[in-house]
């Protein structure tokens, strides 16, 4: 046996050890994310239906729009978003640092506490206890439980970073560690300055928006980018096109992300410089987004046809495109001429949808399609099921984004109709509620089938074959793409 194949074998053994060590916490977080995603979509459907037919749930207080919409966003952010992020972070950190997880029971138990805390919080919201802060609607008593659970999980993800024995730090690690610090750096000051030592009421609202902007661009986006920068080189079998461009995009994203959020309050009762800074930072985020997309595209280079075959690559590449679209949306809606129409409409919310669903969700699914076979010891059952998941999810997200943004334009335009009642505004946006409903239904169908496939894998009902499930039969011309170093085919 040659020394290179011996080292390959020991690396494969190490990877298998790592996968075994992180198995239970990561499976817990991925399955929880699946559950919360379906719950969040159903709550989103109920809330949208409430706008179309408000008397449907008139006898049921907990299904009224205000409560359900709050439950929907919190389920999406803390249920789906954080659980998926925890799973991705734990697996990626241990793989990148080449260290198995010690005492996996700790994040496993902390994960249960996290999920119990958000379940209690959402039940309280539906029951009529709501703090009134967007994305922080949980009653304030839930806050400490969330923070303690988070710290336990984050510590377990951070420890391998301090103990790694690698000559160079891969760029994904910078994004992941930044994301790990971001949540407490945003959540703790927000809780203190809004709930414990509240200042001026307007400042509480400003802090709330700063928190949302930070969570989008300092937590969810970095986790998504770390995943894209890890899986695209891994699956395509090519090194990242430019490490320097990766580091540049990291600093551009991290240094700008913390200034965003307040642009939604342009023209409001805050000093104009605050919203102007936020607007400028949001607009400039197009730069790191472009860097990230260019780096991803250039990494694929002549192997870009692999996107046709690999689920991980397809979802990850879609996430990098989604990031450009999301930041263009964000940039556009800060222009005064556009903000005049989209300000205080559902158009302003399109950026949140774009980041959470168009970027983070795609990157997360890309990661799940790679990680789950390695944790469950079997392969996804069918390529056509993954294709179905990809296309239905893509159409659903495009539909939702279009409905939020275009509907927002008409909603804003109608407010300029100064004569007459609010009926003009209500009527203008109604067709887009129907479109939104359709978007949620598509997303539910796609992800219901995905969650079933996920559970089938966990119960070992996947394919037992040793090669990865491809989305299509390999075309004769593309056979040379499947070189041994391609991770999906070699099952590294």
């Amino acid at each position: 046996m040659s020394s290179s194949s011996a080292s390959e074998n020991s690396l494969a053994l190490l990877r298998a050890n790592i996968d075994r060590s992180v198995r239970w916490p990561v499976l817990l977080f991925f399955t929880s994310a699946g559950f919360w995603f379906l719950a969040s979509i159903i709550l989103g459907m109920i809330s949208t239906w409430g706008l179309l037919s408000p008397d449907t749930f008139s006898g049921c207080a907990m299904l009224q729009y205000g409560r359900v919409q709050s439950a929907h966003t919190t389920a999406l952010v803390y249920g789906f978003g954080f659980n998926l992020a925890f799973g991705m972070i734990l697996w990626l950190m241990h793989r990148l640092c080449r260290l198995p997880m010690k005492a996996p029971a700790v994040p496993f138990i902390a994960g249960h506490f996290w999920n119990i805390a958000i379940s209690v919080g959402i039940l309280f919201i539906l029951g009529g206890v709501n703090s009134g802060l967007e994305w922080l609607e949980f009653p304030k008593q839930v806050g400490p439980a969330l923070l303690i659970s988070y710290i336990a999980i984050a510590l377990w993800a951070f420890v391998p970073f301090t103990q790694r024995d690698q000559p160079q730090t891969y760029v994904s690690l910078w994004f992941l560690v930044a994301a790990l610090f971001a949540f407490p750096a945003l959540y703790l000051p927000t809780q203190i300055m809004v709930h414990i030592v509240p200042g001026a009421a307007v400042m509480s609202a400003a802090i709330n928006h700063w928190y949302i902007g930070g969570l989008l661009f300092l937590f969810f986006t970095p986790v998504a980018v770390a995943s894209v920068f890890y899986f695209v080189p891994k699956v395509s079998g090519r090194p990242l096109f430019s490490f320097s461009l990766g580091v540049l995009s990291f600093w551009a994203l991290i240094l700008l992300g913390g200034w965003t959020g307040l642009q939604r309050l342009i023209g409001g009762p805050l000093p104009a410089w605050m919203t102007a800074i936020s607007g400028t930072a949001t607009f400039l985020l197009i730069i790191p987004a472009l860097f990230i997309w260019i780096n991803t595209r250039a990494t694929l280079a002549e192997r870009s046809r692999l996107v046709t075959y690999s689920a991980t690559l397809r979802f990850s590449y879609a996430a990098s495109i989604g990031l450009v679209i999301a930041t263009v949306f964000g940039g556009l809606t800060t222009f005064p001429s556009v903000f005049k129409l989209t300000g205080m409409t559902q158009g302003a919310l399109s950026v949140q949808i774009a980041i959470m669903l168009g970027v983070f969700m795609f990157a997360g699914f890309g990661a799940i399609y790679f990680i789950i076979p390695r944790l469950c010891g079997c392969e996804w059952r069918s390529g056509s099921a993954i294709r179905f998941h990809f296309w239905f999810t893509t159409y659903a997200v495009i539909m939702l984004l279009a409905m939020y943004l275009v509907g927002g334009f008409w909603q804003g335009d109608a407010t300029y109709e100064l004569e007459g009642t609010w009926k003009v505004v209500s009527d203008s946006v109604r067709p887009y509620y129907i479109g939104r409903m359709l978007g949620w239904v598509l997303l539910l169908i796609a992800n219901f089938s995905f969650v079933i496939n996920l559970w089938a894998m966990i119960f070992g009902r996947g394919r037992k074959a040793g090669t990865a499930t491809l989305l299509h039969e390999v075309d004769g011309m593309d056979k040379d793409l499947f070189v041994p170093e391609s991770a999906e085919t070699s099952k590294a």
Partner: protein
Amino acid sequence: MSVRTFYLGLLAAFGLPWVFLVAVPYGEMTASDVTMVDESIGQTYPQTKAGFIEYGNRIYASEGCFQCHSQMVRTTDVSVDPYRYESELGSPVRESRPEDYLGEDYAFLGVQRIGPDLANIGITKPRDIKKATGVDTVDPADVRQWHMEHLFDPRLINEWSNMPSYQHLFEKRRIQGQKSDSALNINVGEGYEVVPTERAEALVTYLMSLKKNDPTGPPKAEEPAEDDEA
């Protein structure tokens, strides 16, 4: 990049926005004293809010009203908010300022406007009723009744409205003796009446108190310089 540079960079990335966008304005706005006294009528602005209004404020949050309604009049360069009020009131209201929210725990600036802005509903609703009925002086009880009916079933008032019905804030009960004073003027069956719960009373009291048009000091930029006064 060394780990040390990385941590310093993170500190700057998280710390600088927090200091300049959060901590400094937090300190300045919390410390600023904008109390004004109109000596001609002996009124202090901003006006103190009663505890029951505070309770109504919490119901407003609990029911998620902020998801559909804003409470801010934005500047005319990015909105027509003041002119919307002008079309209802006959004169524009001024743009909202931080001091309009003093005494509140949290400024419900809003998520989006599925329904109209409520920053000044305490002024606009009496005005609407005045226009509709032609009376000179509007009885607050009539305004209260309008809000109650609107909350109970918004379609009773505007059949096109997509606002939810807040029937859970009311109690339907058998009339015992005389009809209750607070009963809504709606027919819910022979021998029955609908009365607001304490939560509905608090919410309506809060809505009727919403008025973000109190006199305030001029913005700093407009304050006359000392030299001019001399």
